[in-house]
């Protein structure tokens, strides 16, 4: 075979092998590592899987924050305007976390419908609300007011 042809063939084979391997791996890895977002209402209805890492979000309910006396354990409620979701977390909360503010939590829902969070994210400045939370609020409000949801 001509040398240039052979080089071109090397290219094509390399590309094919790597890209097909890559596609397989991507499908596998995405399947393993995506976290779905659920609203407190969906978790209350049992839509969210139990024992699988999920994300949830809403407003932190005023007056719901409770700290343990001797550890970093903390519990609070997040609400989408219709349902309160209890969240348990052990660790340091972000600076901008506060009651009455938006937050996103990630973790596992246990059998008592308490979200055992391993990560808590708060909004980053006073004008910003995470898009998930904004959507959550409006959808839940619509449902609570009998206007019907879009899911």
């Amino acid at each position, binding site marked *: 075979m001509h040398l240039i042809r052979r080089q071109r063939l090397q290219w094509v084979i390399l590309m094919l092998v*790597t890209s097909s391997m890559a596609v397989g791996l991507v499908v596998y*890895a995405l399947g*393993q590592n*995506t976290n779905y977002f659920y609203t407190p209402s969906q978790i209350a209805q049992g839509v969210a899987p139990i024992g699988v890492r999920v*994300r949830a979000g809403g407003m932190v309910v005023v007056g719901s924050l409770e*700290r343990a006396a001797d550890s*970093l354990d903390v519990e609070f409620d997040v609400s989408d305007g219709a349902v309160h979701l209890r969240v348990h977390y052990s660790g*340091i909360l972000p600076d901008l976390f506060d009651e009455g503010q938006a937050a996103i939590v990630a973790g596992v829902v246990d059998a008592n419908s308490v979200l055992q969070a391993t990560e808590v994210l708060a909004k980053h400045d*006073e004008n*910003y609300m995470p898009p998930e939370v904004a959507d959550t609020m409006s959808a839940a409000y619509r449902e609570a007011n009998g206007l019907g949801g879009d899911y």
Partner: protein
Amino acid sequence: MGWEVIISPEFGHVALIIALCLAVIQSSIPLLGSYVGIQRWMELAKSLAIGHFVFVAVAFVCLVTAFLQDDFSLRYVVHNSNQLLPIRYKFSAVWSAHEGSLLLWALVLAGWTAAVAIYSRSLPLVFTSRVLSILGMIAVGFGLFLLLTSNPFERTLPFPPVNGSDLNPLLQDIGLILHPPMLYMGYVGLSVPFAFAIAALLEGQFDSAWARWCRPWVNVAWVFLTIGITLGSWWAYYELGWGGWWFWDPVENASFMPWLVATALVHSIAATEKRGVFRSWTLLLAIFAFSLSLLGTFLVRSGVLTSVHAFASDPERGLFILVFLSLVIGSSLLLFAFRGPAIHAKSTYSGAAREIMILINNLILVTAMAMILIGTLYPLVADALQLGKISVGPPYFNFFFVPLSFALLVCLGVAASSRWQHTASAAVIQHARWPAAFSVSLGMLLPIPLAVWFDSPGYSMAAALTIIAVLWVVAMSLQDLRVKMNTAPLARLSASYWGMLLAHSGIALCALGVGLSSVYDSQRDMRMEPGDSVLVAGYTFEFKTVSEIQETNYRATRALVSVTQQGRPVAELSPEKRYYQSGGQVMTEASIDGGLLRDLYVALGEPLSGDSWGMRVQVKPFVRCIWLGGLLIGIGGLVAVADKRYRRRRKTLDTAVNSLTEPKLEQSR
């Protein structure tokens, strides 16, 4: 009445409009001239480019002045500044939010374009005028974007507020003064090779001489991008307060993807320059690198992502960038589809030739980029298709990136001893024996003392692999240097070669930092009262006192933590919790005792009941190597650009142009 009137926001606004008009002419007339063959039209390009730069610079100076003078009649100043803000932050606040950072972007673009206009004398006029026209088109896009959707000169008249709402405290920091301009220099610098690639496609020609002209531009843009990302990571580490240095956050990915492609481009254009191979691939990479920069802008500025960087966002702006993005990518790929095949390679290579190694390098880097792109865009696509709200976590990215990086390092070691055109595989194996033995044996041994030193449970295979890969790269590079010294004295080696060695050591150092700091990192979050102490990785951290302090624009609670190792004092740390008066924001200011081998990192959490505080204590071995490595990569890139050959060639090209011959150069070396 004096200079305040001249440098008024109105003047800045008008300057911006004039700059846009100049850009419109720059994007059309010279290009048209290059097709109909009117020399005067083509010659216009250079003066227009410089004029455009002057007017954008005037607009920028006007905005800076508005910030320095607390001109709260400007909405943008009101939202991002405050009378109490220290003067250096008033200056950096100019690019702290959307409008100003876009103006900075436009300024940087105008600067690069003017630089191209000045340093392109060695190129044929037809070609230069097309390059400048294409840069002009990008400037039109961004100019329209600025004026239509994000005008920084918008007023709050007739009732301007007395004071501004302050700059986000996270942004009141030296890292944020430097990080965006550096990053933008890199992002926008990639527009030069992009414009160059489009012009080459229009011409249907891309030879070694042109690749040689383009190469320093690619390198410089890539150096800025490298430094910008390094600074961003360093800033996140000490300023976000929690000791992470990379989060696989969409916005970080947005800057990392162009870097990966630009790195591939730096290598592939070297092969094109030296050996005339990979020509169309190089052009394609140039298109991708800039397209990814634009995509980054879209991701950051459109607000489609939940991200720590989403400080302000607006869907209308997102739509504008999305349309602009599809126009740029669509038209350039279409052009490539029609013209790309006309540009092929004429050389051959075999064995473990450097061409092959560069090919592998490019495949790995582009694959890594594609994986990151999928992980970043998948949540957006899923949301648009109503598949649910998804986020892709760091494990996805690590799953791909860690093995790919390892493969890259192994190949990098082999590449160090490869030669252009033909390298016998047997010769490489001959070379590799000692470095392989050295790196594997030392790499297997070192984790044993490291585990003892950093109080880590058991032997870490990940650490062993990291050290093996890193030592392998260093040993192979030194081996090659030794071989080169046998044939030529050190002083005869080119700046390009030293630059390559430095950049490759930078990669190795960075990998060492990433690998070892991930393995041996120790972190404890706990509840502490003054008097409590905790033992982390052999260091005793004692929480001594808390005190209240007052600064110009914030008050803070400061803790005093003293660190000892086996009774011997090591450091006094004073982490703070700051309360900013104007915006009412709270911020954690971590305290770090840095060192090459380990960082001690203490951050103050929230006040809990009584005197106790949440506290995060970390010992992070080798973490500093990550940024030192990044810096070294950047220095390597700059050293390579300083190579004599770029200047010498320019002189030769000048004489060629003067004698009115088409510049055709023989391949050297």
